[in-house]
């Protein structure tokens, strides 16, 4: 039932798409690099979890989703928010804690939400998003919407009881959930081998009768293809699918992590497989891009980020009179 899609770089076939994937990954990478800077400058506070190194996963997975599909993500979700269609402005303003942020400054980095683009968080309880995704899919099933709910989570979440309950329920009720495990081999400082008795993750999903696939999460083209197939399978037969994307975070877990638990060498090894650099290499080989075009791309991304920072900087703070808003709904609209 499991299809291994580990590859060493799928051949590129589509120029526009390849360039668009590159652009999306660059947007995430540069945005987060800037965010790290802004964190040091204390413009962004709280927890900041960077996705750097893992960009191919969100970008590729989004490639398999339709606009009206739902996405439930974790606290490491800047990338997911961007690929789901959110503007950098509103994300950056949220991270600044400004009233113009997507959650009016209530959520911060870990809690990005967007009703229009159907992003249901930004969930900071590990595993907590899985049951919610199951419920969103149930709502679609009951309302006969042919939509997919995609739920992204780390491999660490698979030890939580909710993973087990959610996979079982989704399989039992045949619900259209695309479970995407972003296996970056560590949950904070806990290596997968110290967290799971069996490290073959798809086999767990398979024990609920859920179809699975594993893909090289450092190869955006491969992820996109796998996600495309997985999502269309979910869409067609209505039941769940489990996609493991093998990836790596290049940065510490959050901004407070001395990284005692892994070697520089290991990190360097994975950096050699940087999803952005490898895509650029392959695009160059095809002759689809040159230095000046790449410079333009970087320039456009930099401008977008600069504008987002500017927007966040200029935005006002929420008034303290509004402190107790959004605890309960204001309208009685049902």
């Amino acid at each position: 039932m499991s299809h291994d899609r580990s590859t060493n770089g799928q051949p590129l076939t589509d120029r526009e798409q390849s360039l668009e994937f590159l652009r999306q990954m660059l947007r995430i990478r540069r945005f987060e690099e800037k965010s790290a800077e802004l964190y040091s400058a204390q413009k962004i506070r709280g927890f900041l979890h960077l996705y750097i190194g893992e960009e191919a996963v969100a970008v590729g997975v989004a490639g398999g989703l339709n606009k009206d599909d739902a996405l439930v993500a974790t606290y490491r979700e800047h990338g997911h928010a961007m690929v789901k269609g959110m503007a950098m402005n509103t994300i950056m303003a949220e991270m600044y804690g400004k009233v113009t942020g997507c959650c009016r400054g209530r959520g911060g980095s870990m809690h990005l939400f967007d009703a229009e683009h159907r992003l249901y968080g930004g969930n900071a309880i590990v595993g907590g998003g899985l049951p919610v995704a199951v419920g969103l899919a149930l709502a679609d099933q009951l309302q006969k919407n042919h939509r997919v709910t995609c739920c992204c989570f780390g491999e660490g979440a698979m030890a939580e009881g909710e993973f087990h309950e959610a996979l079982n329920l989704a399989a039992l009720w045949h619900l259209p959930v695309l479970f995407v495990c972003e296996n970056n081999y560590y949950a904070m400082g806990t290596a997968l081998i110290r967290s799971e008795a069996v490290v073959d993750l798809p086999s767990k999903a398979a024990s609920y009768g859920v179809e699975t696939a594993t893909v090289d999460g450092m190869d955006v083209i491969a992820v996109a293809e796998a996600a495309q197939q997985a999502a269309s399978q979910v869409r067609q037969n209505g039941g769940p699918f489990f996609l493991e994307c093998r990836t790596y975070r290049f940065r510490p877990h959050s901004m407070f992590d001395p990284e005692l638990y892994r070697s520089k060498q290991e990190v360097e090894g994975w950096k050699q497989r940087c999803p952005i650099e490898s895509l650029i290499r392959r695009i160059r080989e095809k002759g689809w891009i040159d230095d000046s075009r790449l410079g333009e791309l970087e320039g456009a991304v930099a401008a977008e980020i600069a504008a987002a920072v500017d927007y966040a900087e200029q935005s006002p703070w929420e008034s303290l009179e509004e402190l107790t808003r959004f605890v309960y709904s204001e309208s009685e609209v049902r």
Partner: protein
Amino acid sequence: MAEQMRTITYRDAVREGLREALQKDERVFLMGEDVGRYGGCFAASKGLLEEFGPERVRDTPLSESTFTGAGIGAALGGMRPIVEIMTVNFSLLALDQIMNNAATYLHMSGGLFNVPLVIRMATGGGKQLAAQHSHSLEGWYAHIPGIKVLCAATLEDARGMLWGALLDPDPVLLFEPSVLYAMEGELAVDAGAVDIAGARLHHEGRDLTLITYGSCLYKCLDAAEQLEVSGISCDVIDLRSLRPLDEESFFTSVAKTHRALIVDEGWRSGSLAAEISARIMENAFYELDAPVERICSVEVPMPYAKHMEEAALPQVKTIVETARRMIHG
């Protein structure tokens, strides 16, 4: 006044509420352990599977956290789920979903996503079910901002609170004291939805305010009758909503009686009764002729043996004696 009445049990009143909800709104569905084929662990949903089918009356696996979370997701996705957790004791397995998700989604998202979910649970002691099946945690749940907490003591409320809760755009926990399911009484033939905001005054008096909710309401009403005979007249307030509290109801009463006794089946320390006492302290201190008192459950995991369980729970005798002491010293 000329209302037509019929005799009905609390259980059947709950079932009528469920049936009405399923009939009125296509978005409503019921899910939980054994709500379907078994007919509900307290038989409250008996027959509904046959009437509405397995799409809308859904038996779940034993996975409290996930079917509660799925209720949240389904609510976000446009449905109006009623999640049944058999008893509040098992809801501890779903607390992460209730507090960290249901109660916070609206706020974390800056108002983007409300969660119109109703969670029903049985609660309380009195059936000799011992330490893992008997606790009254509804007052404890009332600590959590972002949810509303109701407790249906009467047939009207057993019948009508559900629809009120479903009309609410935010998550509502609806508690049903398990000792009441078999209670029989009179209910208007055309009883329907009730307001879920205000407390209700069940008995009027001048000397003492008895504040309570859930199955202790009947203990307070009994006590009030006994006290009436000995010349002490009481207001008896059924809070109905534990969060938010209709504090005006007891402030008004205390302004008249100048004495208050709170009867609450929760454990004493950190009880809802403590909150009420503190609010009276803060808002009606100068009205008081005597300190507010509390009668709560003894702080012990519930023992099985009948005499011990009874001794652990609030009882009419204690209410009467405490009231007498409060009035006559």
